[in-house]
């Protein structure tokens, strides 16, 4: 018990706080984008919408290395966007925690997208129609009728997205690197501990990650069953 106590005390908990921070910011970004896209795909069926939706869902099935490589190619130093950002703002997402946020947001988006799309599709259109006969603007109908009705489903998907963002590893490792005290998230810390043979530390971090993820998933389940 004493050694466990001293292990907990001597452990650097920066990766935990960084993971929480990265996951929170990434989930927020994917929430906003996911709601917008989810509404579009639920309500506006344009030609090719299934294919476009499938493209947004791709990060769910693509290997993390493909996603990481894609981000490097699109935002790295040699890319048009990356070069422009570096030149004008001296800013880059590579090897910064912002890169980890981008990678996590990309993999979390499909989860928010799918659940909000399903949630919006499940809202009774007649209620929205009733609201617009009461002279509510489309934006007001969305905010006061559609969104509140779809909220449990969206929230469930958001919590799933948060858990996914907490566990993000491959793509964020490629884009942000595992720089201790700067970009080393919890999953990267576990990976480093295993590679260096620090089994005690690895086990401790694995337990922490698992407990947090289980909690988040339990909460998510409760919101899914609320619908």
């Amino acid at each position: 018990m004493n050694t466990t106590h001293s292990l907990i005390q001597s452990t650097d908990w920066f990766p935990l706080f960084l993971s929480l921070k990265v996951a929170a910011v990434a989930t927020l970004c994917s929430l906003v984008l996911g709601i917008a896209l989810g509404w579009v795909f639920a309500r506006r069926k344009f030609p090719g919408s299934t294919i476009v939706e499938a493209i947004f869902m791709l990060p769910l099935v693509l290997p993390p290395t493909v996603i990481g490589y894609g981000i490097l190619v699109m935002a790295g130093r040699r890319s048009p966007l990356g070069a422009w950002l570096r030149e004008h703002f001296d800013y880059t997402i590579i090897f910064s925690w912002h890169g980890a946020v981008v990678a996590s947001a990309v993999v979390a988006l499909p989860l928010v997208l799918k659940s909000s799309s399903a949630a919006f599709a499940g809202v009774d259109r007649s209620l929205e129609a009733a609201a617009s006969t009461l002279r509510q603007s489309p934006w007001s109908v969305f905010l006061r009728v559609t969104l509140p009705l779809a909220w449990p489903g969206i929230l469930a998907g958001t919590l799933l997205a948060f858990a996914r963002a907490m566990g993000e590893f491959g793509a964020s490792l490629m884009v942000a690197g595992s720089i201790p005290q700067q970009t080393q998230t919890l999953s990267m810390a576990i990976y480093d501990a295993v590679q260096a043979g620090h089994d005690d530390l690895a086990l401790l971090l694995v337990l922490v990650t698992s407990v947090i993820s289980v909690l988040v998933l339990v909460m998510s389940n409760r919101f899914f069953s609320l619908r």
Partner: protein
Amino acid sequence: MRSFRLLACAAAIASSLALPMAASAQQLTVSAAASLTDAFKELGPKFEASKPGATVRFNFAASGALLQQIAQGAPVDVFASADQATMGRADDQKLIDADTRRNFVSNSLVLIEPAQGGVGVKSLQDLSGAAVKKIAIGKVATVPVGAYTRQVLDGAKLWEPLEPKFVQADSVRQVLDYVGRGEVDAGFVYRTDATIAGDKVKVVATPSGHTPVSYPVAVIADSRQKSLARDFTAYLTGEEAQAVFKRYGFGKP
């Protein structure tokens, strides 16, 4: 009739499981440091040609990571490390047949920068300049090139000042990739890696102040192919292999 079908299923499953067993009869698994990737890939077919019926498969990663795999029981027959320290740890953990351990090549550490768009690093001291924002090195604990880098920078009293700029990579090839892509301003790799990267990177210095980069190879204690494994380690110090190593820029052991 039913029992016949059951029997047929069982036989099918059993034979499909037996197949891989038969295939591994003369297969050698070699875990080698990442910097040996190209040279070993060329030597593999040559060794197979010299020993009909034998196949060699390679597993390349940082020496520390490979050691971890072996320590956890990975079925490896030969281990080639990029530094004596990692092989020493393997020896301490009784993972190798110590009498098969031998040095087979040497290498040197170089400081590189991107060939295009680099900030103009010319020496170790330039690394402290404001123009150099990120430096790629191997993870000190598990990647030998990182350990050599640490020795050099400790000796030059630059380790602590440069620490905020480090991006620690999982293998020397990843360091090479970061520099080649221009994502970092400088990196430390082996001369042989800089050569492989061709026109993507340029060598700016060959720092001294590290233990000689000497690569040892040894047979794993739990190997099931002891005699073939010994043949492979002997092959590495033979004339044919040494000529290949020389072509890639490795030095004599």
